[in-house]
C-alpha cells in the first residue's frame, strides 16, 4: 500500500501522460484533415477523399480514446486533489468549465458529422464540420493551457476566505488567464502537436512504402504533406523554445536551475552536456559536490539570460522546495536532442525532395519509421520538464502538491485506483496501437477505377490531377 499523496501524484502523472498522447495526435492531425477535406470538396482528385477517409479513421479512433481518458482528468482534481480544488477552484475551475462549453462541445458534436455524416450533409457543411473540429480541438488547448499556465505563473488573485477556508480569490481575470506564459506554452504545444502528427503519419507512410508496393502514390502524398509541416514546425520549435527558455528563467528561476542543474547561484553558469549524481542516496537532487558533469563555460547563462555573464539563481537558494531535478535535467536534454533530430530529418527530406529523389533514400524512410512516435515522446518529455520542474508546488510558490491532496483519502483507496489505472490504461493503449496497426496494414480503400485490380498502384487518379 502506498502513501495517498504519492499514489495520487503517480496516478495523476500516469493518467495525464497516457491521455496527452491522444490529443497531441488529434490536434496535430486536425489541420491535415481540414486541408484534405478542402481539396476533396474542391474536386482536386479522388486521392484527397481517400486521404481524408483513411486518416479520419485513425483520427476518430484516437479522439475516442482521448475523450474517455480526458474525462478522468476533469474529475481527478476533485477525487485526489480536493484541497487543491477547494483552494483554487474559483480561478482554476473557470478555464476547465469554459473548455467544455466553448471548445469540447464544438469539437465533439462536429466530429459526429465529420466522421459519420459525409452523405448526410452538403459538401460545404462537411468542410465546415472539419474546420470546426479542428478549431474546437485547438480551443480546448487554449483553455487547458490557460489553466496550466496559471499554475506556473499565478497572477490576478489574492488570498481570501470562503466558508471559513483560505482560498485564492480572483481579482483580475485578464491578468489571471492571459499570462505571458500562456502564449509561450500554447505556441510551443500546438507546433509540437503538428510536428508529432507529421512524424506519425510520415512514419506510417514510410513503413508502407518499405513493406509493400501497393498504393504507393497514396503514401507518397502523405509523406510530402508531412515533410512540409515538419519544415515549418521543427525549426520553429528551436527558435521559439530558445526564447521560451529565457521567459522561464525570468518567471520560474527554480525550474530553470533544475533544467540546467545549476546548484550554486553564479554568473556565467556552464551549460552541462551531461551530469550524473555520484551519491547513491541522493540520485534526484545532488548538490554540486555530489555530481559529476561536463559543461560548456557560460553556456547556461547565455541560454537563460542572453548574456555570457548573466546571473543564474542556483537550486541551493530554494531550500527544500526543489524538484527532483535530475529528471528535469535529463528530460530537457532528451527533448532538445529529439528536436534537433527532427530539424535534421526535415532538412534531409527537403534536400532529397529538391533533388527529385525523396522516395529513393531508404535510410531516410527507415529514419521516418523509427521517428513515428518520437514527436509524441518529445511532448511527454517537455511536459515532464514543465510539471516536474514546478515541484513541489502545484501552484508555483502558492500551494504545494502535498497540501492539495484530498484529506480523507486513504492509502488503500489510492493504491487500488492507481493499480486499476496502470492496468486499464495499458490495455487501452495497447488496443489502440493494435487497431491503428490493423488499419495501417489494411491501408486506404482502393481508388474507384481500380477495384478489379486491388494490388495495382494507387496513383491512377493522382497522375490525372
Amino acid at each position, binding site marked *: 500500500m502506498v502513501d495517498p499523496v504519492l499514489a495520487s501524484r503517480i496516478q495523476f502523472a500516469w493518467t495525464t501522460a497516457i491521455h496527452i498522447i491522444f490529443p497531441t495526435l488529434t490536434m496535430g492531425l486536425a489541420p491535415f484533415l481540414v486541408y484534405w477535406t478542402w481539396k476533396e470538396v474542391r474536386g482536386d482528385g479522388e486521392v484527397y477523399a481517400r486521404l481524408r477517409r483513411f486518416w479520419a479513421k485513425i483520427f476518430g479512433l484516437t479522439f475516442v480514446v482521448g475523450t474517455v481518458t480526458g474525462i478522468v482528468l476533469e474529475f481527478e482534481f476533485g477525487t485526489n486533489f480536493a484541497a*487543491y*480544488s*477547494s483552494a483554487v*477552484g474559483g480561478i482554476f475551475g473557470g478555464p476547465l*468549465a*469554459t473548455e*467544455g462549453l466553448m471548445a469540447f462541445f464544438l469539437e465533439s458534436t462536429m466530429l459526429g458529422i465529420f466522421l459519420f455524416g459525409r452523405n448526410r450533409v452538403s459538401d460545404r457543411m462537411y468542410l465546415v464540420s472539419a474546420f470546426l473540429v479542428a478549431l474546437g480541438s485547438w480551443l480546448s488547448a487554449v483553455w487547458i493551457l490557460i489553466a496550466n499556465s496559471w499554475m506556473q505563473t499565478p497572477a490576478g488573485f489574492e488570498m*481570501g476566505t470562503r466558508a471559513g477556508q483560505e482560498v485564492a480569490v480572483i481579482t483580475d481575470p485578464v491578468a489571471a488567464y492571459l499570462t505571458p506564459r500562456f502564449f509561450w506554452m500554447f505556441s510551443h504545444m500546438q507546433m509540437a502537436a503538428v510536428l508529432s502528427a507529421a512524424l506519425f503519419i510520415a512514419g506510417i507512410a514510410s513503413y508502407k512504402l518499405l513493406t509493400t508496393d501497393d498504393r504507393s502514390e497514396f503514401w507518397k502524398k502523405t509523406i510530402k504533406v508531412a515533410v512540409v509541416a515538419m519544415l515549418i514546425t521543427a525549426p520553429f520549435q528551436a527558435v521559439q523554445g530558445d526564447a521560451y527558455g529565457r521567459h522561464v528563467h525570468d518567471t520560474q528561476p527554480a525550474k530553470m536551475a533544475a533544467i540546467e542543474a545549476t546548484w550554486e547561484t553564479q554568473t556565467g553558469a556552464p551549460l552541462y552536456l551531461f551530469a550524473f549524481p555520484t551519491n547513491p542516496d541522493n540520485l534526484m537532487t545532488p548538490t554540486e559536490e555530489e555530481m559529476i558533469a561536463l559543461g560548456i563555460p557560460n553556456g547556461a547563462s547565455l541560454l537563460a539570460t542572453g548574456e555570457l555573464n548573466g546571473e543564474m539563481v542556483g537550486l541551493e537558494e530554494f531550500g527544500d522546495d526543489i524538484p527532483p531535478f535530475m529528471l528535469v535535467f535529463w528530460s530537457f536534454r532528451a527533448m532538445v536532442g529529439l528536436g534537433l533530430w527532427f530539424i535534421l530529418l526535415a532538412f534531409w527530406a527537403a534536400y532529397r525532395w529538391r533533388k527529385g529523389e525523396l522516395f529513393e533514400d531508404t535510410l531516410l524512410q527507415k529514419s521516418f519509421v523509427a521517428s513515428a512516435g518520437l514527436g509524441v515522446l518529445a511532448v511527454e518529455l517537455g511536459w515532464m520538464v514543465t510539471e516536474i520542474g514546478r515541484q513541489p508546488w502545484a501552484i508555483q510558490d502558492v500551494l504545494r502538491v502535498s497540501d492539495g491532496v484530498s484529506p480523507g*483519502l486513504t492509502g488503500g483507496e489510492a493504491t487500488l485506483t492507481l493499480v486499476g489505472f496502470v492496468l486499464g490504461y495499458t490495455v487501452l493503449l495497447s488496443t489502440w496501437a493494435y487497431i491503428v496497426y490493423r488499419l495501417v496494414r489494411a491501408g486506404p480503400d482502393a481508388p474507384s477505377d481500380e477495384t478489379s485490380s486491388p494490388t495495382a498502384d494507387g496513383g491512377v487518379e493522382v497522375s490525372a490531377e
Partner: protein
Amino acid sequence: MMPLSLADTYLLGLPLVEMWYVVIFLTLAMFLWLDGSNFGIGILFGMVDDEEIKESMLAAVAPLWDGTEVWLIVFGGAMFAVFPDVYAGLFSENYLLMFLILGALIIRGVSPEFREQRHDASWQRVWGVLFVSGSTLAPFFLGVFTANWLIGSTSLLSLPGVVVGLVVVTLSAVEGAAFTNMKLEEKSATVNTYGTIFQVAYLVLAVTTVGYLYLFVEGMAAKVLSPFALGLVALTAILGIAYIVLLQSGQSLYAFVTAGVQTFGLIALVGFLLYPTIYPIDGLIVQDAAVSVLAMNVMTVVLVIFLPLVLLYFAVLYNAFRGPVQAGEGY
C-alpha cells in the same frame, strides 16, 4: 459597467448563485437525457437478438455519444468553477464510486469503436458484452452518486443507492427504447415491449425512492409532501403513461421527448429536495459554497455567450442525423 462593480455586485443584480445551482442540475439533466438514451441503447443492445437492429443501434449511437458525454464534463467543470468545495467534497468522499463511473464510461465509449474493427465472432462478442456492461453500469453508478449526494451518504453500496441506481438505469432504457425506434426504418415490437416494461419499472422505482425519502431520511418528509414535489411525481406518472401510448403507436420521437421531460423532472426533484443545502455531508448551503462575485460574473458571461451556441451545435448534429439510420452508416 465599471470593473470595480463587477467584483462587488452580481451582473444586473441577478441572483446568480441560485441561477448557477439550477444550471448545474440542468447540465446533469441534459446529460442524463441525451447520453442517457445512448446508455439505454447499450442496455437494450444486450436484450435484442436481431443483428440488423443491433447494427442500427450502434450506428445511431456512433455520431452522438462523444458530444452528449460532454454534458457530464461540463457538469463537473461548472461545479469546479462555481461550487469548488462541492466538487472537491463530493468527488473525493465518493472516491471509489467516481472511478467506477469513470471506468464504466471508458468501457462504454471505446467498446463500440473497438468492436467494429474486427469482424470475427469472439472479438465482437467481447466488445459487445463490454458495451452492454459499460452502458448499464455507468447510469447505475451515476444513480448511486445522485442518491449519495442527496442524502449525504458516501456508501458504495446501500439500499437507497441501489434503488436510485436502478431508477437511472431504467430511465436510460426508457429513453434508449424510444431513440432506437426513432432510428429504425421498421419499428421493432420487441423494443416497444422493453420500453414499456422499463417505463413501468421506472415509475415503480421512482415512487419507491420518494417513499423511502419520506419515511427514512431526516428532514425530507415536509419537502416530499410539498405541492412542487408531489406535482412532479404526478407529472411523471402521466408522462410515463403517455410514453407507453406514444411508443406503442409508433410516435417514437414524441416518446423520446416525453422520456426527456421525465428526466428533467427527476433532476428537478433532486435539486428541489436538496436546496438550500448543496452538500449535506458538511451541511454546506448554496450561498456559502459559491465562489467570489467576480468569478461568478465571469462564468455567467461565458455561459450566456456559449450556451446558445452549444444548443445550436446539438440542433445541427441531431438534425444531420434525423430519421432512420441509412444503409452503410455507422462505424
